[in-house]
């Protein structure tokens, strides 16, 4: 290593300086403002004013908690489904022998991102509607007598979330499995482990960093999802993101919206802690 590179390695904090400044100005500072506002009273027109109050947290943990729990439940389900679908897929892709096959598969996973998320979610409305393609197909086959209520349900939200976030699960797991050394599998089997045991005791633990990263990347945006429940959820699939949006729009209550955001962030933070500690255990 040249001395210049050694110097960079040892005192390279300036590499992080632009991002640190950016985050301090546009993340930490606004977050502090949101936290501050969440303890203020609602003034005329929904803006924050003094005195300080805990009212909005009381409401957040009051009836709003119904929707908060629903959001956590839907996000957790989304994460589990994405994991069950994404792990085998990532495993399949990363074990292709030919490099081209791997690259094309990865490309196909990312391909949906080329279309705007809003448009893709709108399309689900057309697919899931009472007179939509899925109902039309099932009716045509005579599998159902009358249209199923698919749209405007939690089921629709779940489909939309899994569809939207699946790539975020596949990519980190892919990276983990690709680095996995398959000689460990041979070793485990030589020592008498069956397939299930080999997977659970060797493959899964060694690819766990990818699994945890994927789960975090799916769970965190799912909890705060706004577009998907707005377009697909109707009254039954309403999520906390929609109610937060309402407080800054029609319902005009910025302090309540701020409090709800903080509570939601706390939930996400807790799940991140699980991620960090889970990761540490794997390494330790």
């Amino acid at each position, binding site marked *: 290593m040249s001395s210049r590179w050694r110097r960079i390695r040892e005192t390279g904090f300036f590499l992080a300086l632009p991002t640190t400044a950016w985050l301090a100005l546009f993340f930490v500072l606004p977050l502090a403002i949101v936290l501050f506002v969440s303890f203020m009273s609602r003034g005329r027109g929904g803006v924050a004013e003094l005195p300080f109050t805990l009212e909005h947290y009381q409401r957040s943990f009051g009836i709003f908690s*119904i929707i908060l729990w629903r959001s956590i439940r839907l996000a957790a389900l989304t994460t589990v489904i994405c994991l069950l679908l994404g792990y085998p897929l990532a495993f399949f892709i990363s074990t292709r022998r030919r490099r081209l096959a791997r690259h094309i598969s990865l490309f196909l996973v990312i391909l949906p991102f080329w279309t705007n998320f809003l448009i893709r979610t709108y399309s689900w409305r057309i697919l899931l509607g009472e007179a939509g393609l899925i109902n039309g197909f099932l009716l045509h086959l005579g599998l159902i007598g009358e249209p199923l209520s698919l749209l405007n349900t939690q089921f629709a939200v779940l489909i939309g979330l899994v569809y939207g976030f699946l790539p975020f699960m596949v990519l980190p797991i892919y990276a983990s499995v690709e680095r996995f050394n398959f000689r460990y599998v041979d070793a485990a089997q030589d020592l008498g482990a069956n397939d299930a045991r080999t997977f659970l005791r060797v493959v899964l633990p060694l690819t766990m960093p990818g699994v945890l990263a994927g789960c975090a990347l799916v769970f965190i945006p799912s909890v705060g999802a706004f577009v998907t429940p707005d377009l697909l959820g109707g009254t039954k699939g309403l999520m906390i993101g929609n109610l937060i949006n309402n407080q800054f729009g029609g319902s005009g209550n910025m302090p309540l919206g701020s409090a709800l955001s903080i509570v939601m962030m706390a939930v996400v933070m807790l799940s991140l802690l699980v991620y960090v500690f889970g990761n540490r255990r794997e390494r330790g």
Partner: protein
Amino acid sequence: MKKVLLLLSALLLLVPGAFAQEMEHEPWACPEGYEGQTLSIFNWSTYIAEDTVPNFEAACGVTVNYDIYESNEAMLARIRQGNPGYDIIVPSGGTVQRMAEEMLLIPLDMAMIPNAANVIPDLLGAAYDPDNMYSLPYQWGTVGVGYRTEVFPDGINSWDQVWEHDGPVAWLDDRQTMLGIAHLFLDNDPNTTDADEINAARDYLIEKGGNVVTVAADDGQVLLERGDVDIAIEYNGDILQISWDCECDDYAYAIPEEGSNVWIDNLSIPVDAPNPELAMVFIDYILDAKVGADLTNYIWYASPNQASIESGYIDEDILNDPAIFPPAEQVAKLFAVIDVGAEAEELINNAWDELLIFLGQ
């Protein structure tokens, strides 16, 4: 409220005399000196004719930015948080009053809007803006029930049919109107500011809302058209637009006999508008007899423009349509939404959030 009813009753008397022969009309001319300028309009969705904006751009040599909103509350929130650059907004009556009180509107300069003389006199000087200092009418209409005629061959004449329907229903994200309809059933003033009454209306709606699949943001007609719902509570013109588009009898609009909401939407200029002069020129343009008639012919709402009505430019189908110009006995049962003040506004907003939470339970 009484005054609104009175003036709308008076309006109906004007309609029969409306079918005068088409008169010669000078096309609207743009005053000099606006070339190259920009106007930003913030209007309700599906609420303007295809050629209204392009014709204005051509006449004045200006560029128009056009943006849409779905409810008075959503628009109000944007302006309250600081006008992001809009020159024209289209608030309903009660919202004009609220915005004027909060000093969110710029006074109109009537010298720049000679076509204000075209407005039906009874629609001027409404209680929400007695001297028309801040607003001139854009269109007026009602909230009612859009439904699939296949599902309701005998029509809908009561809200109970909506509450009891065994099939998907969409409500309208218009909180004061929806709570006002519940107040009609509870024998309360639709604009009550009493906390207990507002909460009772909320509970009434939650109880009756078991069949509601979505509270639609001014796009209920799309859900109806796509077959996702059998009933959509909507603004009348939005439902009539889809009937007109499909040239069919698949959809119909009705005002239930218990009553509903009547509203007047207005052209106003929000505070901190970048180009209030051009905004006033635009208001004058909209109030031109021909421009106003073309607008009404496209969006199927009731025109407040006497010159448009008398000139014969408006389709007779529209002038004769009871869904656009309701008969007097129906008008008597309509209520207008007024500014209820800051305290009741908060009560209503809280009630609406709670309703959204419990509707989906």
